[in-house]
């Protein structure tokens, strides 16, 4: 196939999409397909790797290379793939159970190693595919099939966890914000290193309305906060509210009482403040969307290739016969 100008359609495979009608996954699929033509990578050089879950069916619908692997291991598989093939654009599709329950360890190790891959974490705060048990991001007290009296586990704060694991790029978007999502997908792609994009995704069958307040017209503006780098944190109707810092303590203020200059100005390079933003969760604050943190750091695969190159430079390209022979031989006549 020629390296032509792609359209979103070129990224749609011939497989029928099989999510429940109304599932938030559809929107994410659509945005990803529409962003792919923009990243400037031939589609044969793109790989989608997923684990298991409703969300993890994703690769089947993308007309790229893809692997629907096993539960929790997409991150580890993608690590090997990227180490093997740094030339590829590698996308990891995972759910809140897949990445944070069974796959938690591979996720944090991928983040610390900083392979240049893009993780799309579909967070619906439930196990969809297994029909509705609570997940590590479900709120405490949640009644599900496995917790008829309410769950008693304190949930993870996924972005806080990822920052704790020294992630170099951490962002959040939502199924119902297609434009924002496309922007975040492009930012994820542009980041060299592991990008973690959490996407709030509504599971209308087992956890409908989990993000209702953030999508409903009536409440949305007060419950969401869209981050932009170097811009003050404002939200609410007509952006009339803002967030300022009193020491380390964020507080919501009215722009009637304070000016934009008084507000906390978002700085993507500040990990401490990014950490504070991830905690707008436990508390009664608007939920931030956007890039929380982004920082350049060497990638694992670059360092790996560098060592190989250096080894070749130092010792010459390996000679198999020398290796077989070793340093100590004798001859029997």
């Amino acid at each position, binding site marked *: 196939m020629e390296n032509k100008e792609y359209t979103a359609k070129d990224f749609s495979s011939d497989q029928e999409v099989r999510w429940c009608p109304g599932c938030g996954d559809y929107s994410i699929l659509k945005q990803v397909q529409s962003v792919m033509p923009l990243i400037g990578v031939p589609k044969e050089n793109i790989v989608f790797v997923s684990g298991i879950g409703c969300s993890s069916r994703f690769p089947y619908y993308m007309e790229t290379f893809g692997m629907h*692997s096993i539960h929790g291991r997409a991150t580890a598989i993608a*690590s090997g793939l990227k*180490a093997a093939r740094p030339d590829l654009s590698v996308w990891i599709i995972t759910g809140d159970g897949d990445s944070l329950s069974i796959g938690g360890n591979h996720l944090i190790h991928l983040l610390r190693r900083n392979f240049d891959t893009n993780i799309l974490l579909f967070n619906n705060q439930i196990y969809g595919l297994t029909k509705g048990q609570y997940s590590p991001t479900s709120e405490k007290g949640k009644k599900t099939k496995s917790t008829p009296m309410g769950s008693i586990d304190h949930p993870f704060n996924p972005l806080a966890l990822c920052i704790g694991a020294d992630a170099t790029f951490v962002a959040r978007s939502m199924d119902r914000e297609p434009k924002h999502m496309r922007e975040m997908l492009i930012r994820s792609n542009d980041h060299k290193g592991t990008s973690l994009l959490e996407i709030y995704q509504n599971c209308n069958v087992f956890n409908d309305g989990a993000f209702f307040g953030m999508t409903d017209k009536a409440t949305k503006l007060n419950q969401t906060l869209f981050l932009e780098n170097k811009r003050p944190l404002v939200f609410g109707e007509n952006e009339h509210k803002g967030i300022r810092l009193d020491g380390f303590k964020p507080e919501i203020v009215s722009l009637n009482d304070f000016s934009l200059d008084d507000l906390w100005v978002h700085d993507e390079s500040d990990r401490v403040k990014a950490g504070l933003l991830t905690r707008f969760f436990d508390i009664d604050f608007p939920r931030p969307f956007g890039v929380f943190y982004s920082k350049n750091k060497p990638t694992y695969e670059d360092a790996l290739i560098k060592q190989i190159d250096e080894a070749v430079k130092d010792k*010459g390209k390996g000679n*198999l016969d020398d290796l077989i022979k070793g340093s100590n031989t004798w001859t029997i006549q």
Partner: protein
Amino acid sequence: MTQETVEKVVIFFAGDSGDGIQLTGSQFTNTAALHGNDLSTFPDFPAEIRAPQGTLAGVSGFQISFGSTEIFTPGDECDVLVVMNVAALKANLKRLKTGGTIVVNSDGFDRRNLRLAGYENDENPLLDNSLTNFRVIEINVTKLTRECLLDVNLGVKEKDRCKNMFVLGFVYWMYNRSLDHTINFLTQKFKNKSDVLDANIRALKAGYNFANTCEISSSRFEVKPAKMTSGKYRNIMGNQATAIGLIAASKQSSLDLFYGSYPITPASDILHELSKHKNFGVRSFQAEDEIAAISACIGASFGGLFGVTATSGPGVALKGEAIGLAFMLELPLLIVNVQRGGPSTGLPTKTEQSDLLQAVYGRNGEAPVPVVSASTPSDCFESVMEACRIAIEHMTPVFFLSDGYIANGAEPWLYPHSKNLKKISVPMTKVNNSNYLPYKRDKKFVREWAIPGMPGLEHRVGGLEKENLTGNVSYDSSNHEFMVKTRAKKVDEIANYIPKQELDAGSKNAQVLVLAWGSTYGAIKTAVKELLNEGYSVAHAHLRYIHPFPKNLGSLIRKHDKILIPEINNGQLIKLIRDKYLVDAIPMNKIQGIPFEAREIKNRIIELHDGE
């Protein structure tokens, strides 16, 4: 003083972990090799990293068997026991044959050492007549070493580190060996530390001369060179041979090697070895656990490299699910299991063959995976290459089974030239294959491989059942049955691409057939050879390919009255054989973390042969 010529000698060097026993052993080995002896060695490490000095737990040992005949094992009983302290004697006396020689550093028998080794009330094995069945050569090694280094500018500790060279010199004299190799070695090793070099060489020579002059040892032995196939040899350990074999397979297939592993005894040395060879394009990856290690390999193989992961039993237990995925994806992948004593954590530093059934059956669903095994340290090279060949040419995960005994044991290896190695052909599709179907198969039932970067060949794979040809997800009933059977057939078909089973020794109608696999090779070979010389009707077949079995195996084994299957486990190969061929094979099992002795096998064969 007499000079005797002997055919074969077994020496066991033992001392504290800090005494440099492994170095001593390997020097003796190399010198024997250069002398033209055949040989086989095995180190015996303590289970603890560094147990307190002087205790039984801290004893390190090294066994070598060398001779002017063919040698297949490090030996059953030892002829000579060299001990640096009393703990070393206590721990290893049982290895010495009656009438054998003990070379003793008597300075290692002081009160402190006696206490640490568990002797109470001034007991001392050198004084209590308990060694009357042996010839004891007592030497004040510590004292003598210090004396010969009097004017060397080193501390006592550093001087004492030369004790092993003194002893080595002594033993070299006993076996009439040249010091040259070791002197060369030392010169290389200590090229920047002239004091240390000097001290070591002096101690070595002092030991040699001491033996020569003191006449404490009344006899000297000559072990003539063995009649070995002519050619170039090196000494090699199993894990080393495995690592080199992997690189060779990578070269022969032109697929770069991706090695994903998580450290575990006794497999870690493969990781260590491979990570030294980045200039061969080897990408070694120390993963966070065994699951990540194999997953990364699956990713790498999907990307068109050759993924290899190595571990030991407990690690394999963790990889089962991912092996199933690789099996479904039909990607080349090698899983190396350097087996150790089980179950669970078991005996990590001891050898065992108890993971065979895990390799054959340890996954959910119908997921047969080829299994290849190595029989000796040097055989690891060729057999791991065979395992790689099967994985790549047949697009399947493959198990390669080694064990702690092979991994750490060493033997001379008539190494090949690379131009004589088999090529491995990769079933990669053509770049512009417009009819590409990921699960279309050739006559071997092998699918064609397309990797990211090939335009127009984009496709998706996964662990759900797939539709024949397209690889799309399929819940269809009869497609599932078809695919399960096809995948099984593909693996069975490999039997057409491996050599027929041959007898290693004996004739095809012999009364007793010893059928075995893996590291029992040397002991069986020795036993059968002796029995054949003694006129017994016995034969030996040793399996490299365990799944699938060679095609002729059934007809081969059915020709014998009795089939004996010795294994270092509680009976695993025997289950496969009985199931498949319905023969009443006879088990012989040893589960002690140590290999069979040839004489054990020999006795059992004689029992079977002479009735029972």
